């Protein structure tokens, strides 16, 4: 299947069904490798995904080269985040005081369930039955839409990509470009089935227009609006939201009720700190100098209400983890995903978690170490993620550290445990090692092809085995330099 990628013809994409994400098996470990294999078996999807994200990475590089102070900015951004996180209690209370003074109602939610019930209560009090919302990874993390559906509240996503995903019943596959794993033919199919557009017209302008026509009336008549937040400014109590579609502004400004759901790590101390982060966010994410809209919400409109729900949901616990607390610096730009060679070839849904790609590998296990135990192994530890991170999270070192933690917790497959124990024992004993190496080479040289390339040999599935040499280096050395030691 994989072979066909080299002679790609766009016309063929019509017959290639969209590969779906990881199979959710409750608390059992997500098999990222299995889902990635299915993604790779859809070469048109995989190729488009890889090239689209690689383009974002290249544009990000261009932006970096346009700013002589880039590395200095990363250092500053990291320092501001580390300072804020290590004084989080102070800044949270400062934010609360200032937001309240601006007329905002501030709520504290310790976990996802509390967040969802706070939102539900606020909606109920105003009798709101429809909620328009802009993109928020936090509400994905909390499973808000499912809970509100149970309470009879209709939720309408207003970010185009997020809306596509909602209509298709899929989670976002990327924190910034949630439907990047889909071809436009997939979108045409989803829209045909849900909003009645022409299934054979996959022109992006047509699709965007059809969605706009279908969603605009829902937006104009919505009872309540919800946004996430990119930044909370402690000294002013302001909420800052960055979008390219202006949809957050619709959500915040059309209905009388605006609810902001935000994780407690999104704080920054001062307005002037935004000068660093706003300059880096979109450059890192999409390679554009700034998002089309950077909106500052300081309080409710006249006659309206504004609520901010500050959500912990495991963040305080993460803040206490010596090796992993700096993952809270993340500003959700997605640069690590765009650059990740594994992510680009697996699709975000293969991770079976709210957060995919490199940042997901180090955040997801904090939610459920068993379910996400395979994720830190879905990496070559190449370190590109760490280098692109605008807030200098040492992502690949944290992936390495998570592996050790998961092994200590026995959250690794038996076959790997047994193999590593055996390898460790052999490699600690020179004589045993010698015998093993020489036997292996003999076997490789003498076994027939079918015995080497079978279902049990994962290496040999898509690759040839190394060719065993006539003698090892050791044998050569003894023979040629034996006397010289």
């Amino acid at each position, binding site marked *: 299947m*994989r072979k066909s990628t080299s002679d790609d013809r766009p016309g063929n994409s019509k017959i290639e069904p969209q590969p779906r994400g990881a199979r959710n098996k409750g608390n059992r470990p997500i098999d990222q*490798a299995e889902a990635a*294999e299915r993604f*790779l078996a859809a070469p048109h999807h*995989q190729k488009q995904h*890889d090239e689209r994200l690689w383009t974002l990475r290249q544009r990000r*590089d261009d932006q970096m*080269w346009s*700013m*002589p102070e*880039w*590395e200095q900015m990363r250092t500053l951004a990291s320092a501001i985040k580390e300072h804020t996180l290590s004084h989080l209690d102070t800044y949270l209370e400062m934010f609360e005081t200032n937001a309240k003074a601006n007329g905002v109602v501030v709520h504290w939610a310790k976990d996802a369930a509390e967040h969802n019930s706070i939102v539900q209560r606020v909606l109920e009090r105003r009798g709101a039955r429809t909620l328009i919302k802009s993109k928020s990874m936090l509400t994905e993390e909390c499973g808000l839409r499912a809970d509100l559906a149970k309470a009879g509240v209709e939720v309408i996503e207003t970010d185009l990509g997020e809306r596509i995903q909602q209509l298709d019943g899929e989670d976002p596959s990327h924190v910034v470009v949630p439907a990047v794993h889909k071809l436009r033919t997939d979108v045409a199919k989803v829209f045909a089935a849900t909003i009645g557009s022409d299934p054979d017209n996959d022109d992006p302008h047509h699709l965007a227009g059809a969605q706009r026509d279908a969603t605009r009336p829902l937006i104009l008549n919505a009872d309540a609006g919800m946004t996430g937040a990119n930044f909370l400014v402690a000294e002013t109590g302001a909420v800052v939201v960055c979008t390219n579609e202006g949809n957050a502004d619709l959500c915040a400004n059309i209905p009388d009720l605006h609810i902001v759901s935000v994780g407690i790590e999104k704080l920054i101390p001062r307005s002037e700190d935004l000068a660093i982060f706003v300059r880096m966010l979109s450059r890192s994410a999409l390679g554009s100098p700034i998002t089309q809209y950077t909106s500052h919400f300081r309080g409710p409109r006249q006659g309206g209400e504004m609520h901010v729900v500050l959500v912990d949901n495991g963040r305080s616990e993460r803040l206490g983890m010596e090796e992993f607390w700096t993952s809270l610096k993340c500003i959700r730009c997605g640069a690590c995903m765009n*650059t990740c*060679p*594994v992510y680009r070839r697996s699709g975000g849904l293969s991770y079976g978690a709210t957060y995919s790609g490199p940042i997901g590998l180090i955040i997801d296990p904090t939610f459920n170490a068993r379910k996400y135990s395979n994720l830190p*192994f*879905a*990496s*070559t*530890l*190449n370190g*590109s993620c760490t*280098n*692109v991170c605008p807030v200098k999270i040492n992502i690949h070192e944290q992936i*390495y550290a*998570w*592996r*050790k933690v998961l*092994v200590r917790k026995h959250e690794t497959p038996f076959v*790997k*445990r047994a193999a*590593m*124990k055996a*390898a*460790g*024992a*052999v*490699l*600690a*004993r*020179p004589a045993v*090692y010698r015998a093993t*190496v020489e036997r292996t*080479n003999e076997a490789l040289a003498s076994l027939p092809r079918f015995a080497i390339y079978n279902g049990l040999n994962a*290496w040999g*599935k*898509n*690759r*040839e*085995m*190394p060719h065993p*040499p006539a*003698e*090892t*280096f*050791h*044998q*050569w*050395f003894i023979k040629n*330099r034996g006397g010289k030691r």
Partner: protein
Amino acid sequence: MKIGLFIPCFIDAFFPEVGIATLELLERFDLNVVYPPDQTCCGQPMANSGFETDASGAEALFVRNFDGFDYVVGPSGSCVHHIRHHFTAVEQTAAVEGVRARTYELVEFLHDILKVDAFPWARFPHKVGLHNSCGTLRGLGHASASELREPHFSKPEALLSKVDGLELVAASRPDECCGFGGLFSVFNESVSAKMGSDKVHDFAKAKAEYIVSADSSCLMHQRGCAERDNVSIKFIHIAQILNGAGA
């Protein structure tokens, strides 16, 4: 100068010619190169997979083998990266710390310590694509990384530029990982093989006749992908070129 020659396990087993080239190359500089025969592995395969405890025997043995040398030199970036940055399965005694600090990957040893300015015996009239492994590039800092805003430098390029006739060609994604990743190549085989396949096709598009690297593990993986995909490209370790292979 007394040098301990570190020949990692998979080079010993599969790429003896790389070990031989490393030994001969170092000897050209009048160094006293010693091969401790009881060496096996640096512990990286176990530690990289999270099984640090299982790496302690190999790490302890490594220190026993290589204590007392002025430098330990090996032709494998990922192994040296492990030794320098992750070698913590054993207690950090003075001997352990000393061995870790004195262990060099071959390219950095030639470039930074010996400061070699000519390889008069080397001639390699071919188009060559340089694959910097992630361990050498981002781990050991062999070269500037494309993600960082830093002035361009490359130690392997600097050495290869002194080889007569050699022409470097660049892949379109110059420092994209090739997907080997140790056990990743087995437990995540489909993504690993796709990354390797993409890598060799990228080099082939740049018209490289050879892919050269300071890491035989990446080369072993890429060669396996190239052979399966029928991409005609050859693979060679940088030690072999610098020692005069094909001259």
